[in-house]
């Protein structure tokens, strides 16, 4: 899933701010860490009690609350509190049971889930294995067009094998399958309601019926969504502490920050980076930084042009001042990124990933080595084209930073600016990719497993834009995806990672922390990137 980069608030103002910051970062020494004092936390202090109401900001109105049509972070934040699946992620990014009581994996291709008894939907009806099988199977319905169909590519069948038992048969072992069920891909809704509402399901008029600590009670079109505590929720550990929580849609980041500063809004995820310092110092509340599975990369779109020679790609990567970019666009709330899968995605065998990460030199700054590589390879005869957009605040700044870094090692970079709609078009439209060598965007995994990220570089993958193909690489990733043992999987996937980083199919830039602001009257939610996978708002309550 791609991460939302901060929305630009006003064209002219955004541009000036960017230039000023860039000028500042150009002079700073690059060896120092971006912000040494920044503290990364998993959870915020526990809530002291209940609250009658609170207001939360989301950047956009949900397109649909039907889970199969939701790939948006804003919708996901709300959905995680209203509709749960069999599994969820805990604040440490580990998979834990939600609607499931337990699960077993009797054969490499069979998963059996036992449901908790007596779980009720928001309308009071009881959850059955039928509902679960129906909900998961909806992702396989071609005509429905689920946005999460990718999670189900290895699924042969999903059947209710008992009143409280669901069996999933896979076509081949899939180490990611269970993790996917903790993401929005695994949400369960009521079969009866989905069928009764038809096309209206998930719209402001149709609503949703599922299981979660909060029920969707009001959808004021274009304005806000209100959720209220579901008193029949099955899990006392995640009973909602706030009686009425309103998600208000605030598109403009400046308006959002003003709302937070004036106390009209109690909290928000994904804060505009330029506001972090202001919010931290405001005294109105606290900014928290959490672990995240997301990163920001310069994606190579064309390997036949000036970036054809791997030495040029390596030289460019070694010229980039990643700490400078972090200071300029992330407000310091990020760490330099050395591979497409970021440290936050190491959900297992962390030491293996760490030592592999430490050995990645080509994504560290080294101007002398970079100049040498350019000299060896010879500078390309036409400039490297970097696509940027003014629709996302950080993108033009990063583009300019890469341009100046390239200049230092004798590479010529041309910046091409696209409107937001054309910029988004590159994912599905090969025509839109034409003439672009590097494309800047945030991207990460849906759960803490780097395997998901490295599948993108396999032969024929939908997001493998350059058409990279290496049989050895494909075999490594395939084997990793079929290896249930974490230590072994990490061994395999770090080997694959080495290939991708050596090739520099993506030039990794920075891994932003998950940012969260809480007004001083509320506390309790996790700070890690689990806002799509865990009913975080249920833990939120009164600070005193």
């Amino acid at each position, binding site marked *: 899933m791609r991460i939302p980069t901060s929305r630009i608030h006003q064209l002219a103002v955004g541009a000036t701010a960017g230039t000023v910051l860039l000028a500042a970062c150009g002079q700073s020494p690059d060896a120092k860490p971006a912000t040494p004092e920044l503290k990364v936390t998993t959870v915020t202090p526990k809530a002291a009690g209940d609250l009658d109401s609170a207001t939360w900001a989301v950047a*956009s*109105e949900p397109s649909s609350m039907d889970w199969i049509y939701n*790939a948006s972070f804003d919708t996901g934040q709300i959905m995680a509190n209203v509709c749960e699946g069999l599994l969820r992620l805990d604040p440490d990014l580990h998979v834990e049971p939600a609607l499931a009581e337990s699960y077993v994996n009797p054969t490499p291709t069979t998963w059996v889930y036992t449901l908790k008894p007596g779980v009720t939907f928001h309308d009071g009806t009881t959850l059955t294995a039928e509902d679960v099988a129906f909900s998961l199977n909806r992702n396989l319905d071609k005509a429905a067009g689920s946005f999460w169909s990718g999670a189900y590519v290895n699924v042969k069948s999903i059947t209710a094998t008992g009143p409280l038992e669901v069996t999933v048969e896979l076509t081949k072992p899939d180490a990611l399958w269970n993790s996917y069920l903790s993401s929005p891909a695994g949400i369960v809704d009521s079969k009866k309601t989905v069928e009764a509402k038809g096309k209206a399901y998930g719209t402001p008029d149709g609503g949703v019926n599922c299981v979660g600590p909060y029920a969707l009670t009001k959808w004021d079109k274009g304005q806000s969504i209100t959720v209220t505590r579901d008193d029949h929720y099955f899990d006392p550990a995640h009973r909602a502490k706030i009686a009425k929580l309103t998600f208000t849609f605030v598109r*403009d980041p400046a*308006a959002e920050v003003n709302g937070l500063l004036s106390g009209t809004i109690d909290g928000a995820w994904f804060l505009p980076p330029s506001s972090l310092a202001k919010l931290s110092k405001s005294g109105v509340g606290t900014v928290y930084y959490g672990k995240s599975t997301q990163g920001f990369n310069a994606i190579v779109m064309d390997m036949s042009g000036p970036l054809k020679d791997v030495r040029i790609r390596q030289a460019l990567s070694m010229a980039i001042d990643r700490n400078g970019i972090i200071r300029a666009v992330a407000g310091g709330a990020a760490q330099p990124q050395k591979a497409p899968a970021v440290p936050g995605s190491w959900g297992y065998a962390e030491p293996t990933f760490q030592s592999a990460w430490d050995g990645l030199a080509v994504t560290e700054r080294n101007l002398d080595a970079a100049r040498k590589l350019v000299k060896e390879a010879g500078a390309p005869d036409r400039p490297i084209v970097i696509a940027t957009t003014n629709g996302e605040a950080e993108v033009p700044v990063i583009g300019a930073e890469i341009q100046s870094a390239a200049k230092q090692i004798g590479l010529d970079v041309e910046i091409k600016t696209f409107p937001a*709609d054309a910029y988004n078009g590159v994912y*599905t439209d090969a025509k839109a990719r034409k003439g672009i060598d590097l494309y800047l965007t945030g991207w990460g995994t849906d759960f803490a497993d780097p395997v998901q990220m490295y599948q993108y570089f396999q032969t024929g993958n939908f997001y493998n834009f350059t058409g990279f193909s290496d049989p050895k690489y494909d075999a490594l990733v395939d084997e990793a995806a079929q290896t249930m043992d974490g230590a072994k999987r990490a061994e395999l996937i770090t080997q694959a990672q080495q290939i991708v980083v050596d090739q520099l199919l993506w030039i990794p830039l920075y891994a932003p922390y998950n940012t969260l602001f809480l007004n001083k009257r509320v506390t309790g939610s996790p700070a890690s990137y689990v806002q799509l996978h865990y009913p975080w708002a249920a833990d939120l309550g009164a600070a005193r």
Partner: protein
Amino acid sequence: MLSLRAGQLVVVLFAASVLVFSAMYLAPGSPESFLVHGNSVTPATLQAIRDQYHLDDPFWQQYLAWVGGLLRGDFGQSIQFRQPVTALIGSRLPTTLLLIAYASVLIVVGGVLTGVLAAVRKGRTDTSVVVASTVAMSTPSFVVAIVMTSLFSVSLHWFPAFGDGSGLLDRLWHLTMPAIALAFSSGALVTRTTRSAMLVELANEYVETARMRGLPERRIIWRQAFRNALGPVVTLAGLVVSGLLVTTTIVETAFGLNGVGSLLVQAVNVKDFPVVQAIVLVIVAVFALVNLAVDAVRPLIDPRARSVEAAR
């Protein structure tokens, strides 16, 4: 006369719709890439989405289907929101209309009063009005928005930073800063036009004659000079007010208002064709209708315009 104008309106609407439709169609990228947000999806899924919205049909077929729906009063279904376009626009229209009405009152009343004041008082008052209006005219609405929010909502807490509120009074309170931001530069333009038109009229001989005949000054200013100066002011006000529909996109975004303008921005960014089309059509129609109204009013306030019409 009126039927001629109505015919012109239809032609303008048709041309605008073809223009917007083809521009959206020709630009690279398509809505489904935004919808799936870089999720791992199968190509079959993308095809299913394209089929759901007939995105693979040829241009003219998509256009005709859209026009056909329009003739039946159906603006189609939003790709992004999976809801009828009419419902989407309908729920946002009250905010935008109220904002425009509020700003129009500020522009017309504020602009005319300061303009007349400057022309009549002359001297220091005139100089300050000229300087202030020059500054105001060259200040973009989003700058006004930023300054006002940081001053009046974040520091002083007088007005809410964002949102449209509920109930008329609360709404007006929420819309005060946006309306001022919207009215700022256009109001100044009306001030300047009123001022110059009034200066021309006040220098006329009939004003001298009226003064010599001992008519009260207030009567001379408002009943005689102002009435004669009204022509250019009404024309300008008509243009400015109909143009507000476009400027609201910026102001609504800056103040987090959920109006038609901010809906347009969202729709353009994700290539939500049906929504963009419908809003552009509404904007063009309003623009044409307001100008029609101005043309209809002019003969009433200025007999010279009436005689021109008659001579045609």
